[in-house]
């Protein structure tokens, strides 16, 4: 099977196919049911664990039930939430987020056919313009426009503009902010369209490495909540340990993970493979069930890693030699390459990324393997993939572990477990990584999995000697300017626009991405034959080129 035939990311799945590819465990169903409730929720899981899938399935179920329940579900992805200009201006970031939320809402309302925003082709043949006067969608659209403009231009008079659409006749005695208008508009919309409740699903809710934006997001997450609105967000692990979040602890946290010890674990993972594999190929895999199960355990419950490693192995003969080399290739190289890349993009984190890798490979893995080998030789059953870090270990150490969590290399097993009177957090290492250190992974796999015991693990105390070379870390050290500098220097030649447009904007002095992003859409229009819409498009393309860099 071609690699293009596998779908590794839920965003690439067509809506109709979503349910066909979805494989549900008991935990998944509980999570989905929780998503549909009124309570605020944080869905936590590393990359590839299936958070987006759960959100999308919940959205589909709510959509299908809309006629009866009148609960409108709106999915919003903040994947592209790195906003250069507003990085140090939280107010503008907030307005941008609200604009994005409203845009998604408007789209959903139109898609579901609940309201129509313009007369379009009907207006050409009939007199229908008057039907749109004072429509709620006009109000919504105007609000979005104002928020967008305000979030981009510093000297934009937000208050003045918003008065005109919300028809404030009295002078400002109270200073109303965007959220007040937002909630008022939501009430109007719900009344007009007969909506009982709105659920916002935030995907890629806050980028792990920009703390100021995380704070803004969580504040908004809390402030959006009302009798009409409930919020749910999918986040990466490590988020909840940020100080900023702890203030807003009324949200429930649920993990997306698959318990290795669950009796259905293997069958569910096999189903995930089966839905994405041609029947003949799957039969071939199933014939070597034991080998297939080793690959399944190696992925430690992460569907993305599972599908990627299966793809890698299915191109050759499915035998133990090849499965062994797959495990070694994938879990020694591929998975680490992605992790290391993080350090290249976020220079401020590079030292921690590298330290984390060294700590895991040279210390933790060595200690873990030693424990496992010793017991194997002594004929004891106990095996481990676990290690624990003291709660009060240096912040930098914990941050390094969080980055490993983000990559899916380790995952939290138990928070706050007591060991000899002290408090530790216990983690589990991705099984594939442990297997990949062996000469012949398939030989030790069975024994490892069958003997897993959380009682056996290596603990690293508050002042462990292994931390001695941890680099200094503080939030202030995250120097985005370095990354931004490099990106801003990218010449316009790399933008995905037509040659014609390129020549035009160069003619008015736009040579690099920086020129475009630091300028204004209006400036772009100085170029001949670049009107407002084209200028917007070019501006967006410049943004997206930047996104590519950050999302790596």
């Amino acid at each position, binding site marked *: 099977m071609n690699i293009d035939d596998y779908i590794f990311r839920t965003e690439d799945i067509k*809506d109709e196919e979503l349910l066909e590819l979805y494989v549900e465990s008991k935990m998944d169903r509980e999570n989905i049911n929780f998503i549909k409730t009124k309570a605020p929720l944080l869905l936590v899981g590393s990359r590839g664990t299936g958070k987006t899938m759960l959100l999308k399935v919940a959205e589909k179920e709510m959509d299908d039930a809309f006629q009866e329940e009148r609960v409108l579900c709106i999915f919003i992805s903040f994947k592209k939430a790195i906003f250069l200009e507003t990085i140090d201006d939280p107010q503008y970031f907030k307005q941008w987020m609200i604009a994005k939320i409203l*845009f998604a809402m408007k789209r959903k309302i139109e898609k579901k056919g609940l309201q*129509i925003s313009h007369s379009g082709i009907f207006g050409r043949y009939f007199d229908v313009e008057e039907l749109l006067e004072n429509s709620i969608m006009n109000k919504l659209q105007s609000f979005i426009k104002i928020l967008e403009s305000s979030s981009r231009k510093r000297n934009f008079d937000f208050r003045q503009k918003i008065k005109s659409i919300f028809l404030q006749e009295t002078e400002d005695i109270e200073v109303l902010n965007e959220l007040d208008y937002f909630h008022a508009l939501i009430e109007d919309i719900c009344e007009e369209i007969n909506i009982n409740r709105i659920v916002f699903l935030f995907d890629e809710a806050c980028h792990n490495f920009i703390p100021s934006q995380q704070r803004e997001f969580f504040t908004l997450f809390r402030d959006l909540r009302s009798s009409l609105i409930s919020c749910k967000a999918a986040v990466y692990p490590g988020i909840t340990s940020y100080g900023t979040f702890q203030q807003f602890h009324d949200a429930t946290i649920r993990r997306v993970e698959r318990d290795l010890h669950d009796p259905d674990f293997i069958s569910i993972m096999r189903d995930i493979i089966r839905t994405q594999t041609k029947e003949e190929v799957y039969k071939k895999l199933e014939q070597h069930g034991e080998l297939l199960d080793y690959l399944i355990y190696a992925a430690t419950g992460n569907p993305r890693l599972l599908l990627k490693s299966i793809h890698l192995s299915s191109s050759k003969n499915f035998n133990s030699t090849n499965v062994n080399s797959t495990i070694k290739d994938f879990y020694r190289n591929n998975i680490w390459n992605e992790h290391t890349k993080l350090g290249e993009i976020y220079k401020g984190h590079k030292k921690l990324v590298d330290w984390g890798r060294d700590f895991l490979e040279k210390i933790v893995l060595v200690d873990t393997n030693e424990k496992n080998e010793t017991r194997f030789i002594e004929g004891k059953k106990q095996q481990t993939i676990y290690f624990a870090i003291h709660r009060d270990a240096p912040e930098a150490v914990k941050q390094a572990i969080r980055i490993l969590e983000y990559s899916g290399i380790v995952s939290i097993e138990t928070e706050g477990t007591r060991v000899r009177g002290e408090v530790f957090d216990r983690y589990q290492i991705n099984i594939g990584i442990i297997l990949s250190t062996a000469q012949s992974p398939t030989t030790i796999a069975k024994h490892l999995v069958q003997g897993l015991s959380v009682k056996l693990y290596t603990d690293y105390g508050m002042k462990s000697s292994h931390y001695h070379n941890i680099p200094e870390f503080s939030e202030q050290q995250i120097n985005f300017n370095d990354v931004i500098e490099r990106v801003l220097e990218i010449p316009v030649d790399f933008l995905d626009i037509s040659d014609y447009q390129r020549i035009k904007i160069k003619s008015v002095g736009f040579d690099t991405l920086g020129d475009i992003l630091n300028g204004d859409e209006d400036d772009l229009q100085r170029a001949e034959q670049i009107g407002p819409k084209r200028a917007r*498009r070019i501006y*967006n393309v410049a943004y997206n080129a930047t996104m590519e860099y950050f999302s790596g």
Partner: protein
Amino acid sequence: MSGLTAELLLITTAQDLSRNIKKHVEECSEKISSMINHLNLLDFWSESLVDTPTQVILKEIGYDLLSSIYISTNGMYRNAYISLRSAIELGIGFFYFTDHNYDFLEWKRNNFDLTWSRLKDFDKGVLSKKYLSLFNDKFNFELYIELVSNIYRECSEYVHGKYDYMHSTDSHRILFSKEKFNEWSNMFLQIVEVIIVLLSVRFNEKLGDLDGFQLETSNDIFRKLGFMELIIENEY
């Protein structure tokens, strides 16, 4: 005493038919909204191709599709398919004439007949690798040709009055049928979608004029039909 005039007859029966419209609106509102959204996107393209001499054809397609909505919601499903076939023929024909100006000039004077076999011709037609690779070498033209061919074949069955596709074999009354409407509207949507796909490929430079919503609707269409290579990165 009373009498029946043509006026009374027409008006009374039109009221009957408008009850069908009501039923459609009540039970198929999501499909109808989808069609309206699609049609508005097509209409936007028509308006923006103002410098293209063949623009009038695109407008006519919009009109065909718009009227087909009234025809089908009245309950006249087979006839609504006939409008759809006209739309797909003109739809592909639009691209032919856009890039074959001489034939277009002759056609305007009724001196040129555009046939489907011409449109499918591998050398001179639109539904050919030769033509479709001119604008975007990543475009999955094979998939496109297959989709359009299936659409045309299906619609033609209705037009040619193939026995199974006739209205009269089912019933004599003009009645609301959710099943028939859904089937028909799926075809409607597909036709607009394939035209939007080719518009996006052929007039790539105009994509900059679409606003965020229109871009997202276009992306949804690309995703639905399987043209992942056409998806446009978008701030939204």
